């Protein structure tokens, strides 16, 4: 029952919308099957499969809104959910920022589903854990990792005749590899929509190499350094900054994208001219649903072009108030780059620091998007195009806005999953000048 076909979903949703006596009604069905396996200390620790399905009904009487959810789909249950939403709406305070349900749309399907990923079973998960552990054990290293895979669908309909249905799949693998004496640590992460290209026994080599090479790290003085941030390391800073691309915040004067004296910085040069960000729900390998949380169609669109701000996110309410066209808010972030790999960037570096991964990134000052966080699991000193030796981890205090004005070179973008972001991202490795490290960490 957890993954319905389009016909099954449409039949239920049509019934629900017809049951409502409210001014308008939106119904949404979601279903998912998620699997995971976790391992630590070279042993499998937990594994599980979670299936879930839900129907959410939202109705409005004027500007009063009520929502109810249910996980049973017989006729009596459907009616009960609709009536409960209606009861809640009648009791709710008026929302002065209410915007009516989205009108009928045409959504262009995006390639979010992979049959190979959806077919992952407990044996596959056990093999991923086993391949990671076996390779680490052979090198006298200790593996701790996690594989999470899932398939899902979303279907919705409203009383204005709008309807959408699409399936999706994804998998994320991470593994931290540590030396037995705890003096070395490496990491590898792989985020994919289609698991056919994934091989744990290949990827784990990256974690193993970094763990072995990071033993006996030397201490460098904190300060400003040329750095090469691998895509996973850069993604944490960049995705954090994207939280502040909200038009309302900028217009209200509480964002780094607010302009002195009022208004926002759309059209202004905020970054190095080589910075180009786009969103595109149909991007191969990084596709997302063709609609956003409110059912607005997403579009392929520039966000930053040649370092200038092109598009901010407008909620439907704020777009209406400001006389703008509301567009679906992006579900992915595609940063343009060049053709070089991280290894190529290292080869072209006289002196610098390679950062494999960043950790525990938090906002210090929203005025400048100053962020703090740490390097971990593989930080190395580069000299004359080669990795010379491992260095102790650093704490950084840096703004991604300043960082993206100090670009030396961008490499080839790869798909990465944010530790704390729901955006699907394509981020290049990047070589940056004057990256600010403010203290050393003894953590390995």
């Amino acid at each position, binding site marked *: 029952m957890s993954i319905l076909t389009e016909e099954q979903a449409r039949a239920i949703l049509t019934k629900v919308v017809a049951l409502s006596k409210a001014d308008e009604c*939106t119904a*949404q069905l979601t279903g998912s099957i998620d699997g*995971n396996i976790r391992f*630590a*200390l070279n*042993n*499998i*620790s937990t594994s599980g499969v979670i299936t879930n399905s839900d129907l*959410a009904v939202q109705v409005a009487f004027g500007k009063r809104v009520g*929502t*109810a959810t249910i996980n049973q789909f017989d006729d009596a249950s459907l009616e009960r959910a609709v009536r*409960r939403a209606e*009861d809640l709406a009648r*009791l*709710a*305070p008026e*929302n002065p*920022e209410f915007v009516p349900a989205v009108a009928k749309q045409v959504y262009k399907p995006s390639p979010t589903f992979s049959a190979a990923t959806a077919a992952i079973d407990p044996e596959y998960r056990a093999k991923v854990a086993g391949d990671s552990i076996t390779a680490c054990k052979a090198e006298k290293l*200790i593996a*701790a990792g*996690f594989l*999470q895979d899932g398939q899902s669908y979303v279907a*919705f309909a409203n009383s204005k005749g709008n309807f959408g249905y699409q399936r999706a799949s994804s998998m994320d693998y991470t*593994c*931290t590899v*540590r030396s037995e004496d705890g003096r070395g640590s490496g990491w590898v992460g792989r985020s994919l929509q289609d698991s056919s290209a994934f091989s744990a026994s290949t990827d784990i080599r990256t974690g193993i190499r970094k763990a072995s090479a990071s033993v006996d790290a030397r201490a460098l003085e904190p300060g400003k350094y040329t750095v090469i941030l691998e895509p996973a390391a850069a993604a944490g800073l960049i995705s954090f900054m994207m939280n502040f691309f909200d038009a309302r915040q900028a217009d*209200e*004067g*509480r964002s780094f994208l*607010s302009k*002195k*004296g009022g208004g926002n910085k759309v059209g202004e040069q*905020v970054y190095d001219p080589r910075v180009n960000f786009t969103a595109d729900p149909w991007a191969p390998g990084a596709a997302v*649903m063709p609609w956003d*949380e409110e*059912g607005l169609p997403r579009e392929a669109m520039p966000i930053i072009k040649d370092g200038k701000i092109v598009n901010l996110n407008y909620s439907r309410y704020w777009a209406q108030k400001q006389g703008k066209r509301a567009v679906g808010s992006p*579900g992915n972030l595609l940063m343009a780059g060049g053709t070089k790999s991280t290894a190529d960037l290292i080869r072209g570096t006289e002196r610098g620091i390679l950062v494999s991964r960043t*950790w*525990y990134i*938090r*906002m*210090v*000052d*929203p*005025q*400048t998007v*100053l962020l*703090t966080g*740490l390097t*971990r699991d593989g930080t190395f000193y580069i000299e004359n195009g080669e990795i010379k030796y491992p260095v102790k*981890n650093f*704490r950084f*205090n840096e703004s991604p*806005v300043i960082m993206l004005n100090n670009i030396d070179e961008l490499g080839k973008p790869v798909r990465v999953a944010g530790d*704390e972001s729901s955006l699907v991202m394509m981020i290049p490795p990047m070589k940056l000048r004057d990256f600010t490290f*403010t*203290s050393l960490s*003894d*953590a*390995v």
Partner: protein
Amino acid sequence: MHRRDFLAASGLALGSGVLPTFLGRAIAAEELVSTIDVAVKKRLADAALNAARSAGASYCDVRVGRYLRQFVITREKNVENVVSTESTGVGVRVIADGAWGFSASNEMTVDAVANAAKLATAIAKANAKSQTAPVQLAPTPGVGEVSWRTPVKKNAMAVPLKEKVDLLLGVNAAATDAGASFVNSILFLVNEQKYFASSDGSYIDQDVHRIWAPLTVTAIDKATGKFRTREGLSAPMGMGFEYLDGAASGKFVSPNGVVNYGLSYDMKEDAIAAAKQAQAKLKAPTVKPGKYDLVLDPSHTWLTIHESVGHPLELDRVLGYEANYAGTSFVTLDKVKQRFQYGSPEVSIVADKTQYGSLGAVGYDDEGVKTKKWDLIRDGKLVDLEAIRDQAHIIGKSASDGCCYADNWANVQFQRMPNVSLEAGKKKQSVADMIAGVENGIYIIGDGSFSIDQQRYNAQFGGQLFYEIKNGKITQQIEDVAYQIRTPEFWNACVGVCDASDYRMGGSFFDGKGQPSQVSTVSHGSSTARFNGINVINTARSLG
């Protein structure tokens, strides 16, 4: 890892669908005050215990859970959202052939629960094949049929919605009148109705209540483009709606007139102060970086305790089980044996799952262990860690510490941080006395930015309000302050803790750990404390 955004953590901001997804199903507010009949829960629990025994399990525990939440979210004159949610179901955990197995179902029928127990046993038997050493469970006596309830005076779930909306909109109006450019205020209420039964002979019914009332005030100077925020100085608490009574007994006035709060919160008063202080922040001079003596208010210190003491003393982190996500720890089993000098003799830190008003307070943990208070650091020396039933033997303990928790019936319980608090100083000392002795210092109130490495050595913290101290006097409000520490040096730089009359708690609703990630709630108490010679950086930057 303390989550930065409770909306993201609660699922309110997630999902790629058309409607927001919630934790559990949305229900009418009236349903928030009902409970499931204990006899029904016992019948379900017995079905699981019997099925597990028949399937060959040597141990079984069952958690029948009903998890209720209510959010009221406002900004300025608007109610942005009101949501009440419920999640019910049963989680069954077993040991079979020396290995753990777990299964959960949202179907509240005898058959579904029995099936979950059989599935959990089958999973345990499968896991046993690759298990290197059998699970060793520290003994816990069965307690028969008992119950426990958070000692609330006013059940927040029973307070009419109109009263809650009126309170928040009144708070927003007061802040706006006091000069706030923007104000967001929220009520977040939790009730965990948890029934635990085990093959040890325990049937424990618990009714756990929590409340949180965060607010954020923003002040803007349009001409310069500068903006500053001031967060509320309340704490999430294990209390009922009485926390919001604003009783005089809950107020702690600092020497420069800032009002801090203990077991009672005056939200409107704090919103007015926040509006004034946010405007003052726009004009406050920037800090000169360097070494300062820090005087830290409990509304700030809780997060430093959480990150630099609570987390590194979790036994699963010490052993390496969290290496791939939350991280490991600089603390080792050897450091415990050697009584590592974690802090100065002024520093005594206790774990306590029984403390009144705290977020972690319960009668029994999620594996049926009666909760207690115990020493972690005594007079600066590390004496103990945080362990649960299957870990106790690793550190030579004969019983669990009672700090096992699952955030939902559908998730398996595991070791979580208990309330971890800095004991008040034994000598009589007020905040004014402490500040009078500081030559060159900064007084920090409220929690701000926070970040710590994966072994809990290097941390950086901000705050809400910073005041310069010169020659024993608070001189002016300053801005752009963050301090950087190395954990053992920081705690060894503690030269004084005010007495118990200044003791208050702070805490978090969203302490994240595990994969898949679970959140936990935890409080940290302290009195105002002084730390000498701490490195302060200036966080102001220019975007040109």
